[in-house]
């Protein structure tokens, strides 16, 4: 029925898409795990990253694969500032205030980007890498050179994250705070610093996801909202605070969406995530994995 070549192509696209979702979901779950904060503006951080990489390439001719790192650092820093100036003062007030603040962030970031972006670039832009046209012939499928680099890059970063979380002092403190904030405070961990760190990392991962997205897709200041919300669905399913759940869930979801788009048509693409979420929540209100690392 379906040629293996086509199947593989859908799968590959699913992996790339899944990488984007995985990065977003991991960032979100780290932030939630540590701060128990829901950052709805994650999609806007994602697009900030995309835009920054794009700008560095467009205005300075910087190879996007280098620009990505600068973009991650810059957006990561922005994340730290957002946590310190915005979320920290709200700690202790009603949980709903954090959601409202996130929405305020969406408005500010999205329209800030649009203000700079739209007059010059109109609707969409895309980051063109030097390898945009290069293709690797794998027999059954053609793999775009970019895809290969992006997949490799993503996994390198994720490996780095793993090493950070499990092999460094800071990483241990982060995981501890995520599991038990009070106990961590009692043990002398500076949880406020961990808050800023986790938000910074989350933002940096979002920026990477955005740059990735911007290389494979045309993007606009508004393109981040949907992927971010889907990433939310992913971490709910995978378990709030669970990095493993975010990684597995993100990848799986990317593949599911790729197949769904192929078989059901483009307009269902966005709805699939929520139908899935609602179905799972009905059956298993606590998600698929348990909470925790």
């Amino acid at each position, binding site marked *: 029925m379906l040629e293996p070549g086509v199947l593989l192509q859908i799968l590959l696209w699913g992996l790339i898409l899944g990488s984007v979702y995985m990065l977003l979901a991991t960032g979100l779950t780290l932030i939630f795990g540590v701060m128990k904060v829901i950052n709805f503006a994650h999609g806007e951080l994602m697009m900030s990253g995309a835009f920054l990489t794009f700008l560095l390439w467009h205005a300075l001719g910087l190879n996007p694969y280098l620009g990505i790192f600068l973009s991650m650092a810059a957006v990561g820093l922005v994340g730290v500032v957002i946590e310190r100036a915005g979320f920290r003062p709200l700690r202790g007030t009603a949980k709903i205030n954090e*959601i409202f603040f996130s929405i305020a962030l969406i408005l500010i970031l999205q329209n800030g980007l649009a203000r700079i972006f739209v007059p010059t670039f109109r609707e969409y832009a895309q980051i063109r890498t030097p390898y945009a046209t290069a293709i690797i012939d794998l027999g059954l499928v053609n793999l775009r050179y970019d895809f290969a680099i992006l997949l490799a890059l993503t996994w390198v970063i994720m490996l780095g994250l793993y090493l950070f979380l499990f092999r460094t002092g800071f990483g241990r403190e982060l995981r501890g705070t995520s599991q038990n904030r009070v106990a961590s405070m009692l043990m002398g961990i500076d949880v406020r610093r961990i808050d800023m760190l986790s938000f910074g990392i989350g933002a940096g991962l979002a920026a990477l996801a955005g740059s990735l997205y911007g290389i494979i897709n045309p993007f606009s200041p508004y393109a981040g909202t949907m992927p971010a919300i889907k990433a939310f669905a992913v971490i709910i399913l995978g378990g709030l605070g669970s990095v493993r759940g975010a990684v597995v869930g993100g990848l799986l979801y990317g593949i599911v969406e790729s197949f769904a788009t192929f078989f059901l048509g483009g307009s269902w693409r*966005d709805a699939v995530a929520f139908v899935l979420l609602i179905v799972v929540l009905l059956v298993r209100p606590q998600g698929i994995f348990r909470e925790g690392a």
Partner: protein
Amino acid sequence: MGSLFRRIRQNLGIALFMFGLPALLLAVMQELFIVQILTFVFIFAIYAQSWNLAAHSGQHSLGHATFLGLGGYASILLSTRAGLPPAMAMFVGPLLPALVGLVIGGLCLRLREWYLGMVTFGSTAIVQVLIVEQFGGLTNRWDGLDAPRLLPPGLSVETAALGNYLLSLALMVATYLVAAAIMKSKVGLAFSTIHDNEVAAHACGVSVKRYRLLAMTLSGYLAGLAGALNGHTLTRHISPGVFGIEDSVWPLLYSIAGGLRTPEGPILGTFIVRVVWEWALRRLGGFESLIIIGLMLALIVTFFPRGVYPIVARAASGLGARVVPGLR
């Protein structure tokens, strides 16, 4: 019923003022576009009020555009396809989003608080697809539908605008009184307990399930009413774009800015936010105005989480008026 009257006597006074002042101002208003801006404020104050009611019961919907849009679509379809006069379709159509509110509320009963936000957000995406794809024949897909006017044809543009203005104002005040009555009744008390502490609410004998569903159904209806009103008066058209994120965010903004969980808050908030936005739009530009709104929201959440209304209320009571939010 007598005691409820006693409780909302104060609100009746405010309602009179709320209706009287803009009605009188109409006489001195010169510009048509101000009339239209205010009509917009009245209609979206209803929308904000609907969100506020659900929020009162702790159900903070992040996808209220679902109800807004479905109300508009249902009403327009009823008046174009089923031959219902718009004035009637406007009140029957919202029964659809009311039902959807019931269903969504039911789905989320077992879930933790902010999951409702996610499900409602997702519902806008799902409903949009359904409207465009599955029901595309009925709804004209992305082109949308034209809406018949609410008032009888043959009126001049000015007269129609004034008519819409007064009608929307009346409905806004009516919704305000309904909201006030609810908040000061046993139902409102139940809503508050659910908002504050569901476990304790259960332990006190509050039938949490029943009241949550009631809140969502009512909220869906009122939001649908606003959508229908908007379609038949201001925009005269509806398209799937209504299910976008913007329209889900605005009622939140209006309610928070004005004062959550008070019946006056959404109205005050809609007015203030809208006026600021319109001013910024003309002076600065579309994006800048939204950035300013975002900054406003951030500031309000950080420094004035109770919104503007408590400040207004305190000032008013300082001037001698007894304006006390709450049960009594």
